[in-house]
């Protein structure tokens, strides 16, 4: 077994970009390679994420194109597509390749453009995102992605008494965190009143309960322990990765609001890392909608089932609270360029564990968790990273 480490990270600001996908990817990939101290000859493979470039921009078979664009022509490349969990699945596969001894140094990352800069308006983009739902059965109902999470959240509200005000508190918290992150799409704070007064997108979600359509790229360099020792990048250890899926469509899941795939992926990641949920110091979770963060914090065991909304409202999941969630601002404020989102979570974990997160730092953090969800709560990847000098602290 070859321990995998993240030795270099890079990401663009998330927001609106007019660059091509290869140009945008280079803005994350080259800084990641530089941060790792990796020369082109050091990199043995590219694990690349892009979810919807074919539909949004008419670009497909992008992996060798972007590899050539960043000086890696000729290495084995593969493109991953798992809806919003695209680049965390690329990360998982890169970690496994390194752990298996197949590759020593791998570039992992993703890129996507979803903003109106692509020429696609809200209706067109809503239709493209809905392509990740069940085609014959869910799409004809007019179900959108806000709608998918609205159905889960409304059920959670019914079962546990979660309120619109508690959901709004998730947005307020993540906007505050985003205001501390100069790469965030939304860099300004919001208020519960502003969230609750916004136009409805899919009841109970109003505009500020929803993440934005963002453009951006993120990349990380994964290396074996031996290879990491030969590179100049400050390493962070990959302690465990879990990956699970749940039944599609939504209606066929045993208990839709429990997001079982997240529970299964978390159990696998915790077992691999030799930790329990209590050992996690902070988490980046998939808060595409405020309700999604509530469900995720419960599924990951960070809060008791049913208390996700109350925990957010009480400040327990804010920076300075007992378990900070989405110190980067999350998808909600940092932004959500689909194929780059999972890699960006790994960037945030790495910067936090290196002590490079500036104002948004989680004090004394040794163990960070990333939770990335794709499709109608079907694919979930959970990754646990540990500070290189954490030793046996977490176990």
């Amino acid at each position, binding site marked *: 077994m070859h321990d995998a480490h993240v030795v270099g990270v890079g990401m663009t600001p998330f927001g609106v970009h007019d660059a091509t996908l290869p140009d945008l990817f280079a803005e994350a990939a080259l800084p990641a390679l530089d941060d790792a101290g990796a020369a082109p000859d050091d990199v043995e493979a590219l694990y690349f994420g892009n979810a919807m470039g074919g539909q949004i921009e008419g670009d497909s078979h992008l992996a060798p194109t972007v590899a050539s664009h960043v000086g890696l022509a000729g290495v084995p490349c593969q493109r991953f597509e798992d809806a919003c969990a695209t680049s965390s699945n690329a990360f998982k596969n890169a970690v496994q390749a390194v752990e298996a001894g197949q590759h020593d140094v791998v570039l992992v990352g993703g890129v996507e453009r979803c903003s109106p800069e692509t020429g696609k308006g809200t209706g067109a983009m809503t239709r493209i995102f809905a392509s990740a739902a069940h085609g014959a059965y869910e799409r004809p109902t*007019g179900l959108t992605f806000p709608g998918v999470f*609205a*159905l889960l959240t409304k*059920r959670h509200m019914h079962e546990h008494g979660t309120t619109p005000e508690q959901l709004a508190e998730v947005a307020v918290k993540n906007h505050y965190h985003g205001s501390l992150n100069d790469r965030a799409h939304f860099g300004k704070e919001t208020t519960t009143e502003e969230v609750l007064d916004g136009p409805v997108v899919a009841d*109970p979600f109003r505009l500020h309960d929803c993440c934005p359509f963002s453009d951006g790229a993120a990349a990380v360099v994964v290396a074996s322990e031996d290879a990491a020792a030969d590179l100049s990048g400050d390493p962070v250890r990959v302690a465990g990765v879990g990956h699970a899926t749940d039944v599609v469509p939504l209606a066929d899941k045993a208990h839709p609001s429990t997001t079982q795939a997240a529970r299964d992926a978390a159990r696998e990641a915790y077992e691999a890392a030799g930790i329990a949920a209590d050992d996690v110091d902070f988490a980046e979770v998939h808060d595409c909608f405020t309700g999604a963060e509530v469900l995720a914090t419960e599924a990951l065991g960070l809060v008791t089932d049913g208390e996700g909304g109350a925990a957010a409202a009480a400040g327990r999941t804010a920076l300075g609270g007992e378990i900070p969630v989405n110190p980067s601002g999350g998808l909600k404020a940092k932004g959500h360029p689909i194929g780059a989102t999972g890699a960006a979570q790994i960037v945030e974990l790495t910067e936090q564990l290196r002590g490079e997160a500036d104002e948004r730092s989680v004090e004394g953090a040794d163990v960070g968790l990333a939770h990335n969800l794709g499709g109608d709560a079907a694919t979930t990847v959970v990754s646990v990273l540990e500070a290189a000098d954490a030793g046996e602290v977490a176990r």
Partner: protein
Amino acid sequence: MSVDDYAEDDRLTTGGWRDALDDGLLLGQECRDCGHVTGAPKAACARCGSRALDTVRLPEEGTVYSVTRIEVAPEGFDAPYHVAMVALDDGRVTARLDGEADIGETVTFTGAASTPEGPAPRFG
């Protein structure tokens, strides 16, 4: 037509399910091995993997399991409209909902909604 007329080689495909819906029939599958009922036809049971699936008419009365009012719609759809998960005796269906209904309220199958993406079950 009988339920079996919509199945091919004893298996309900998406095409048969859509044809039945257009004819005003809400079809699904029941697993002979584990009893799981689905409203979205599959080649094998999503719970146990069994291929022993009976094509069945689903109950036409159920209760709202969850519901949302969609106000930002995909291209080709006119908002606002309601989408619900409806709990039947066994299993659930995702459907368009005529008008409003809260979780727990009884709703009845009223036929197919015709949409740019194909027919969808409609309850009201």
